[in-house]
């Protein structure tokens, strides 16, 4: 009951000087609003930065086949033909830290359209998952090719902006056909511009096609060499047999007796590389471990033997990413802390001034029987009420600010319930802490002095 009366007295006192109450509240309003707006805008920016770095491929892993030794000569990285598209599928299904995986077949070929020709910097045969891995799914025009295109060896391709410029100039490229090694490819999609990568090579100078098409219809070199052996020893029908290579063989076709004399192992369709995207920056390490374990098992490597593949991650980019994230988090924390301290000090100042200004009132209240506890509670209550009201207005204002920023500047913002809870809790705490000193000071006044105060 006493508390309720004190509350009423406090409310009445606040209502008596709305201006002063408003000014006091303003401090905390601005503090809380600043915290929430900064947190939301900051979190949004932080996410956007992470996303940008991720787009550059920070989460990406590259799996290359290891080297192979042939008559004492090491082929160097990627020499062995141990990596298969099935490995890519297995990585995606069996490794929980992996978000996407795509096999890649390298090729070089002259691209021709009408009277223009161009050698693309990158000609990859892959699956649609490649775009997912490289965060490139959103097309500038048209669509990407599909898994069905991969199965069917469809002659379709997706081209980068540089290719569009070099081959098509002002023509719309969608639906047009370009030739690669005399195979016609229908352009189904145009990639978004990505610019140069960190090493300076143009990432838009690219043509992507289903890996089956590239492997069996364009390069076909390795396929050609294996065809006869494969045909002789396996019953399975590879696409390379259905679609004969268009390129003339560099070597004479071995006769049946030659093949019998030098039996070649049956080769599966190997790929040059598997690109993998981890689910997040933190899971890159897990992904490496999982892929290593999986591929060792799939390639039947004994525990004491070295791996026949290599996994590379973007160490530098991952480091950039984590340091950026850390930086943003620290920055936000500091800004939030400063805002709250500023708000709190504002409250304390006005409360202190208010105590001085209301000395006579305090003296009078004490003269008519208020105990020092009553005065303490009243001033504390006033501070808390102001802080809570300020907190509520601050939340609204902070949210409004971040929404405005999003609408006007098109900045990404992220609602952060944590920030709201912390801001309110801290504003209440600030109210008690910063309200306590003036309240205590008021309660310690001697009624005689207080009444005499001018």
């Amino acid at each position, binding site marked *: 009951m006493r508390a309720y009366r004190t509350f009423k007295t406090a409310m*009445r006192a606040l209502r*008596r*000087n709305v201006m002063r109450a408003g000014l006091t509240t303003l401090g905390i309003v601005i503090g809380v609003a600043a915290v929430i707006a900064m947190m939301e805008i900051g979190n949004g920016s932080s996410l956007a930065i992470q996303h940008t770095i991720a787009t550059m491929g920070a989460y990406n892993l590259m799996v290359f086949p290891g080297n192979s030794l042939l008559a004492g000569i090491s082929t160097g990285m990627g020499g062995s033909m141990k990596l298969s598209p099935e490995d890519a599928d297995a990585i995606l299904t069996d490794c929980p830290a992996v978000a996407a995986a795509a096999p890649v077949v390298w090729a070089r070929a002259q691209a021709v359209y009408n009277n223009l020709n161009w050698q693309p910097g990158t000609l990859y045969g892959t699956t649609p998952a490649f775009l997912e891995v490289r965060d490139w799914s959103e097309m500038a025009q048209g669509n990407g090719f599909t898994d069905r295109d991969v199965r069917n060896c469809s002659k379709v391709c997706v081209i980068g902006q540089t290719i569009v410029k070099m081959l098509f100039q002002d023509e719309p490229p969608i639906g047009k056909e370009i030739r690669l090694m005399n195979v016609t490819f229908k352009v189904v999609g145009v990639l978004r511009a990505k610019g140069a990568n960190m090493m300076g090579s143009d990432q838009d100078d690219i043509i992507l096609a289903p890996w089956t098409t590239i492997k069996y219809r364009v390069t076909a070199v390795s396929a050609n060499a294996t065809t006869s052996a494969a045909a002789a020893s396996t019953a399975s029908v590879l696409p390379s047999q259905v679609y004969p290579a268009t390129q003339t063989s560099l070597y004479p076709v071995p006769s049946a007796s030659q093949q019998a004399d030098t039996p070649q192992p049956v080769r599966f369709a190997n790929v040059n590389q598997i690109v993998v995207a981890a689910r997040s920056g933190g899971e890159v390490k897990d992904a490496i471990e999982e892929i290593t374990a999986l591929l060792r098992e799939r390639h039947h490597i004994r525990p004491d033997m070295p791996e026949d593949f290599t996994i590379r991650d973007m160490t530098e980019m991952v480091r950039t990413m984590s340091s950026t994230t850390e930086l943003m988090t620290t920055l936000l924390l500091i800004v939030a802390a400063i805002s709250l301290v500023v708000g709190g000090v504002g409250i304390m100042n006005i409360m202190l001034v208010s105590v001085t200004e209301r000395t006579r009132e305090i003296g009078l209240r004490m003269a008519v*029987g208020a105990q020092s506890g009553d005065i303490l509670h009243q001033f504390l209550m006033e501070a808390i009420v102001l802080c809570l009201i300020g907190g509520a207005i601050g939340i609204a204002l902070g949210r409004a600010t971040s929404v405005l920023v999003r609408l006007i500047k098109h900045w990404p913002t992220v609602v952060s319930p944590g920030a709201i809870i912390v801001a309110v809790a801290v504003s209440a705490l600030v109210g008690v802490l910063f309200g306590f000193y003036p309240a205590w000071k008021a309660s310690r006044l001697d009624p005689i002095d207080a009444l005499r105060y001018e």
Partner: protein
Amino acid sequence: MREVCKTYHLGEMDLQVLKGVTLSVAKGELVALMGASGSGKSTLMNILGCLDRPSSGEYWLDGREISGASANERARLRNRLVGFVFQSFNLLARTSALDNVSMPLTYGEEYVHEADMKARATEMLRKVGLADRMDHQPSQLSGGQQQRVAIARSLINRPRLLLADEPTGNLDSHTSEEILEMFRTLNQSEGLTIILVTHDPQVAHHAKRIIHIRDGLIERGAESKKEEKPE
């Protein structure tokens, strides 16, 4: 025994303001406390009003010896037994007369209901003749009216003792008359004990008894005619 008795002995180590004051005021008296500034008049009034405690000696108020009471006990005593009227009115600004008057009730021992509070404050204001000014704020009232609000406030807890510190100091002579007349009426009709602190002989003249204080000692009027000193 419904008598209000006071006995003083106050000695200060460094500065002896009151050098052993002994006086008594009976219930229902209207007393004026007179003295030049620096005579210890204010100190005496503070002790009388339980705002301060004597450093030595005894103070009996309403049959209780309270010179040893703690700050919070004295706050309760002030609330229950003493009403204050100040020279500068000391009303809460931007607060209606009604709220000003009912304010002491919020610090009372027992909980007083909102409606009850309002009824009592209304009654008090009516008693001081401000029934039509209940919702006015102090800034909308004249000096005399403000002082009457202050009197209503001092009476709301039905005190045993009303202490008026230069109640007419800020008022013109005509309104002073009115206020003093009101004190006299209250004293006569309700038997309220009133102590007027003043340096104005004109004001003191209204009282039935005048206590003169000088250099911390009672010069004249320490004993009431019908009162016997305890001890």
